[in-house]
């Protein structure tokens, strides 16, 4: 069967960027609201809107009946919403609805621009030196660090009054607008990391990403590859911000954020498709 060259009449990337920036603006507005005098007491703290806050306060709540300080019952609703998306569509939350992911994409794009890439050409590897692509021998073990972070936080949550990640949380550092010395340090590390490695936080440290990773294997909505259409051009590998190798063979990789950049860049119609139950 021969594949046809796809005529693009719809850009997934554009829709994604619009949604991502709406989320960023919304999160910033929540942060802004909570530095207004008297506003913090109305409807919970900034942390109440965090999906991972629900994970952090889950075990203490189940075992003691009390929430960790600065968290709120609303955290559970946000967590249920995030898990609901993931249950159906895998780690799509990370690729489409996470403000931190958007900021990392933005930093990576501007790093390339500042280092001389005038315009990104789809499917062509950037000639700039940053963000780096770490060797597999270093990259692979580092990816497991986020599972250790998740484990540390879940165990730690049973012994602390506040959520364990709170003082180092990059979401609070970027959007919280209520800075402490530790959060300034977190912000600096987050920015430096994102300049050096694309989606640094998502790849190596994000405990929410670690929680959602399993859903890529079990979600009914999957990206599927028609191998007889694929000519192994490698465009999808180049565009993958999570650095997944041999994308058509690893479409249910736990690292995939379901951003659909691989589908968007693919020039051969029918090579990559979005399907329910792979039928």
């Amino acid at each position, binding site marked *: 069967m021969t594949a046809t060259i796809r005529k693009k009449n*719809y850009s*997934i990337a554009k*829709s*994604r960027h619009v*949604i991502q920036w709406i989320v960023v603006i919304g999160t910033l507005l929540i942060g802004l609201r909570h530095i207004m005098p008297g506003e913090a*007491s*109305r*409807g*919970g703290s900034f942390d*109440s809107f965090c999906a991972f806050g629900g994970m952090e306060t889950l075990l203490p*709540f*189940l*075992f*003691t*009946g009390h929430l960790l300080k600065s968290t*709120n*019952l*609303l*955290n*559970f*609703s*946000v*967590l*249920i*919403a*995030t*898990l*609901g*998306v993931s249950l*159906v*569509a895998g780690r*799509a*939350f990370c690729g*489409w*609805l996470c403000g931190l992911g958007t900021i990392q994409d933005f930093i990576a794009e501007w790093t390339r621009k500042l280092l001389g890439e005038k315009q990104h050409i789809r499917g062509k590897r950037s000639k700039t030196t940053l963000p780096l692509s770490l060797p597999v021998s270093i990259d692979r073990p580092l990816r497991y660090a986020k599972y250790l972070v998740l484990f540390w936080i879940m165990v730690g949550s049973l012994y602390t009054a506040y959520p364990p990640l709170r003082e180092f949380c990059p979401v609070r550092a970027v959007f919280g607008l209520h800075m402490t010395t530790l959060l300034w340090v977190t912000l600096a590390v987050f920015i430096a990391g994102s300049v050096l490695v694309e989606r640094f936080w998502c790849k190596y440290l994000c405990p929410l990403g670690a929680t959602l990773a399993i859903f890529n294997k079990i979600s009914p*909505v999957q990206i599927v590859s028609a191998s007889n259409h694929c000519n192994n051009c490698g465009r999808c590998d180049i565009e993958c911000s999570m650095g997944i190798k041999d994308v058509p063979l690893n479409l249910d990789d736990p690292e995939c954020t379901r951003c*659909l950049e691989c*589908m*968007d860049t693919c020039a051969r119609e029918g090579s990559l*498709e*979005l*399907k*329910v*139950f792979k*039928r």
Partner: protein
Amino acid sequence: MKIHPRYYPYIIITLYLVFLLIGILLGFGPERIGGGHGNNMLIQLALALEPLT
């Protein structure tokens, strides 16, 4: 069943909002300062688990 990528963002956003609403309907709504926990499923589960701890 094939899904056109055009509909993917709508699916994600709809899922998010529906599950958020389910969460709130289950009783996990925003608490006001001084407010109680209300009567939600997780509280009942926590109360049931309390004798075990």
